[in-house]
């Protein structure tokens, strides 16, 4: 494709024995041009590394320069759903094993024995309280302590007693977390205006409430009771703010477990879970910002 000269020309081009040329150049010529490019590219590489170093110098170790794209925070859940679908047959272990495994893996971070070190962890209480500030980001306090979060707070969804997180009984659990953002403090809703009536019972002080309901009208009533486990059945404020990976290496974000205890079987249900707060926003495009949607189908046949 590159050259449709006749074959002889090709061969001669690749190796011209008369002039001692390989691909149209003599050895010396190749040496010179390759040498030039070697030096030129080394120089460019050096320059590039230099500018990247300059860039790194301008960055803070604790906080990214811009956070306008990461906030407001996303609401993510474990197990992850492929294309927002969570479908399983409670009689078939294979169908929900990936989910329960993901949950066990995730929750292993919250194992009690990992939170024993008193130098790194402290108790922040089982009831929602105020924000727990640990000094300015840039102060020389160094590494900050993290609040403990016991798995047991998640009740039946903690995986301690029920290793299958209710999947076996057709009462699946979901573990929900508000995405970490450095130095971000979520503010609870100040008024009830922005919250749907059904969710208003969840509003209480020092908690970012979370509420799940049917997405579609026709699914109304099919979802059944939804149980919430966790401190204040939401995200308690004492776990905020987060002091970045460097300053807060042991940080455990608060979790909420959601259990669908009376879900209609063999139907695809559209569920939407939403957190409410002053500085929590939603986006038409981003289906995981402050909320998420889930297609849940539990089969018992």
């Amino acid at each position: 494709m590159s050259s449709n000269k006749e074959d002889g020309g090709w061969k001669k081009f690749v190796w011209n024995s008369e002039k001692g040329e390989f691909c149209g150049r003599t050895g010396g010529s190749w040496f010179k041009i390759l040498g030039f490019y070697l030096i030129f590219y080394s120089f460019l590489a050096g320059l590039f590394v230099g500018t990247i170093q300059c860039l790194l110098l301008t960055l803070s170790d604790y906080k990214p320069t811009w956070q306008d794209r990461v906030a407001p925070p996303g609401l993510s859940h474990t197990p992850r759903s492929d294309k927002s679908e969570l479908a399983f047959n409670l009689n078939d272990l294979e169908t929900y094993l990936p989910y329960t495994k993901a949950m066990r893996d995730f929750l292993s971070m919250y194992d009690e024995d990992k939170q024993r070190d008193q130098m790194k962890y402290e108790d922040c209480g089982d009831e929602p309280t105020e924000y727990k500030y640990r000094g300015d980001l840039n102060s020389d306090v160094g590494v900050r302590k993290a609040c403990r979060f016991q798995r047991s707070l998640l009740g039946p969804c903690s995986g301690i007693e029920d290793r299958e997180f209710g999947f076996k009984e057709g009462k699946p659990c979901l573990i929900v977390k508000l995405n970490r953002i450095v130095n971000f403090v979520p503010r609870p809703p100040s008024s009830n205006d922005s919250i749907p009536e059904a969710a208003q019972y969840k509003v209480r002080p020092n908690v970012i409430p979370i509420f799940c309901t049917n997405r579609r009208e026709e699914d109304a009533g099919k979802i059944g009771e939804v149980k919430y486990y966790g401190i204040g059945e939401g995200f308690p404020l004492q776990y905020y703010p987060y002091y970045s990976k460097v300053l807060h290496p042991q940080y455990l974000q608060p979790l909420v477990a959601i259990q669908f205890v009376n879900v209609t079987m063999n139907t695809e249900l559209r569920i939407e879970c939403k957190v409410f707060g002053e500085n929590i926003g939603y986006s038409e495009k981003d289906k995981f910002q402050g909320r998420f949607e889930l297609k849940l189908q539990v089969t018992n046949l």
Partner: protein
Amino acid sequence: MGYGRSDSYRVATTTEKDEKESPKKADTKAEKKIKDMDDLKKEVPLTEHKMSVEEVCQKYSTDIVQGLTNAKAAEYLARDGPNALTPPPTTPEWVKFCRQLFGGFSILLWTGAILCFLAYAIQAATEDEPAGDNLYLGIVLSAVVIITGCFSYFQEAKSSKIMESFKNMVPQQALVIREGEKMQINAEEVVAGDLVEVKGGDRIPADLRIVSSHGCKVDNSSLTGESEPQTRSPDCTHDNPLETRNVAFFSTNCVEGTARGIVVCTGDRTVMGRIATLTSGLESGKTPIAKEIEHFIHLITGVAVFLGITFFILAVCLGYTWLEAVIFLIGIIVANVPEGLLATVTVCLTLTAKRMARKNCLVKNLEAVETLGSTSTICSDKTGTLTQNRMTVAHMWFDNQIHEADTTEDQSGASFDKSSETWLALARVAALCNRAQFKAAQDQLPILKRDVAGDASESALLKCIELSCGSVKQMREKNKKVAEIPFNSTNKYQLSVHETENEEDNRYLLVMKGAPERILDRCSTILIQGKEQPMDEEMKDAFQNAYMELGGLGERVLGFCHLLMPEDQYPKGFAFDCDDVNFTTENLCFVGLMSMIDPPRAAVPDAVGKCRSAGIKVIMVTGDHPITAKAIAKGVGIISEGNETVEDIASRLNIPVSQVNPRDAKACVIHGTDLKDLSQEQMDDILRNHTEIVFARTSPQQKLIIVEGCQRQVRHTQTDGAIVAVTGDGVNDSPALKKADIGVAMGISGSDVSKQAADMILLDDNFASIVTGVEEGRLIFDNLKKSIAYTLTSNIPEITPFLFFILVNIPLPLGTITILCIDLGTDMVPAISLAYEAAESDIMKRQPRNPTRDKLVNERLISIAYGQIGMIQALGGFFSYFVILAENGFLPSLLVGIRLNWDDRSNNDLEDSYGQQWTYEQRKIVEYTCHTAFFVSIVVVQWADVIICKTRRNSVFQQGMRNKILIFGLFEETALAAFLSYTPGMDVALRMYPLKPSWWFCAFPYSFLIFVYDEIRKLILRRNPGGWVEKETYY
């Protein structure tokens, strides 16, 4: 009229020698062509001119008085078809359109588009939610090709529309006599055997054998190029049908008089028809720029395929699936296609074509714009192109002295002493013995611009006298004509008798002009300083010398004499009988000589000089006489001062021509008849060893042979031939025009057939316009290089993101849409603006480019654009990319290998370097912001690129920033980039996001580096000519 020399004219379409020559034409050209040419020659045995009128009548079963019967005419019409030239097989419009759509560069884009659709099809078949990118890209690529195709198609259609306006669409009428009745019929219905009557102003409807004539003259210029009207009479004067007087040719014009003739050939069988058929049978090769583009495509595809395959192998090694690797392969190949380049090149060529049209060069075919620039030989016609196509009095001889007349177009030349009485006498003879007159209602026009009824020599005299002595009309009114003997070829003089101006003087004045030697024979005295003196031997010698000298200048010389007739012999009221001459025509008083020439155009010598300094060989090819041709060639500098022909050397050294070493003569004048006897080797030898060549008395075939000979001329022992331009106006030139790399026809005097065959038309018929064409052609070639270098450079920052995406699994730094925004958006105006760039040095002082060595796009250009500048640009882009990701939390070290998680839709808590968690959508927005920033960075580095591309050798500081379009382009691309980034809704439409102001500056250092790097490179290039830097980087 042919005083002073024979007016026979050979159009050697037909001589027997041509026929002998054709087997010798050991050309490897297709047999068909030789057959065509043979065919053309066979046809000419037109024998009717040798037959008697009766024989002709018999042959066509017609009658000399009654004409054909209507029935017979209808029969012939049915047999021969209409009397019209078969139009050249016009390519249907859709074929032309498809040629634009699929020709040259478009192929590359189509291939790209097809690959895109293929990739999309693969993705659609294997993935549930295929990314639309490949589909969009394919659609955009197709759209680009179709739009540019339409654009060039309409551009071409516009030129051909101008062409059509040249055509005389009025249906021709012919006056035929059938069954004894005169009838006006459509010229198309004329059949062989028809008795046709033509009069002054008519177009000859078919090839006619003249049977009777009354002062009929025809203008054969469209056939032979010679504009001098020729007499037609019933007698056969030459064996060659083209030279005999008793044949008038189809589509030539009858200038004056009337004639009656029998149609012998109609339509395509006419001489004109044969030439037209030959012309349309010739194939013209690819234009140089088309070859260049082909070469360019080879290079680009070479690079693309090399990269694609390399990365295909790498991708497979890295553990991608085969399918993914194939999609990568296609992606890389497509990314190498410069989407905007086709449009850029088309627009650049169009702009130049427009500029040339303003300077009177109309380009029919866009690609031909550049051809003149690479031309190394111009074969120019003489009449009308180099000369004014207007006989003008150049010299006079009276009072035993040669006086020079002003021949310039604007009368700025030297004048002569007009006070001599001899001059007044000469002027009177010239004015009175002259049948030419100005056409009516032209008093406002300058004398030289006025139209004259009459033949060229007489018009020249008329204008000359009108200019120097005032109104000729008044002079004629004062000297009433009482008798006249018009010119005929046996007397070779013209005579008239007038009353004198002086009322009291009852004598008659006899004035005569004609061939000088005939006039001299009739003279016994000569007028010197107003006094009659006997004509002695000394005077006769002086006359001979003057005659020889003027004749040697290639001028047509006329002698003038007069006589005041003695009153006693010719009293007032004497009945002069012109048929049976009853008055003296001997013992006259010789007044002087006047010589005329078709003088060179004022701008031509300068233009020829420019061509010569531009390394272009100018060859004159004319049907005219060698002496005239040589004189004009010397006048315009085609034979430069001090250069001699073999004959000149021989006469200077007084030795026979055969003893002169032909190598000593730089110039040569070759006669058409000699040309026939030359073998191809001899022809090549002449073309190679003489720098200044004039071909005289050439026929259409010979013009063709000359053009082919020139095209064979190899320079620097390379394989490719020279690029030859041919100018011409007559039908006889059209085969050569077609064969030439670029045929240049004349807009005013040119025949339709020649315009059809040509690639370019000089609207003002002026050779000097060709120089403009050469200059523009060379400039556009240089500027196209720059434009392509500019456009190609941004290919590297466009493709490297994809490569790194594959190789090190980073989030994609630059998306397809943004690439298209660069190629078809921001890069366009600056790339086009480079077409407006002024030349770096005097382009008319260097040699024509060598088509084998000086390529439009060569390895050095690729090396610079891809290997050096492009790499710096890519770094600039990547730097912005890393800045944005780092400032948002993703440090460079984290990015490597993050791709799988990054592009995982279900992963909505991806951790960055600070421990923050990102949803898919959030990080995609950052990614698209990176695309935008990368895009903006490319714009920023392209600022520097367009500035460095302004020059190939000079510093920008030498070149200056005077290109306003380029400055506009800089602002335009910046504004467009800002618009794309900040306009609300762009996030949805093009996935472009607003940038923080500081991100605009990321690429600035790289932009600056590009500028400095290239300035240093060019500095070394200038300081060290021929050095390594030049060899490796001068494109």
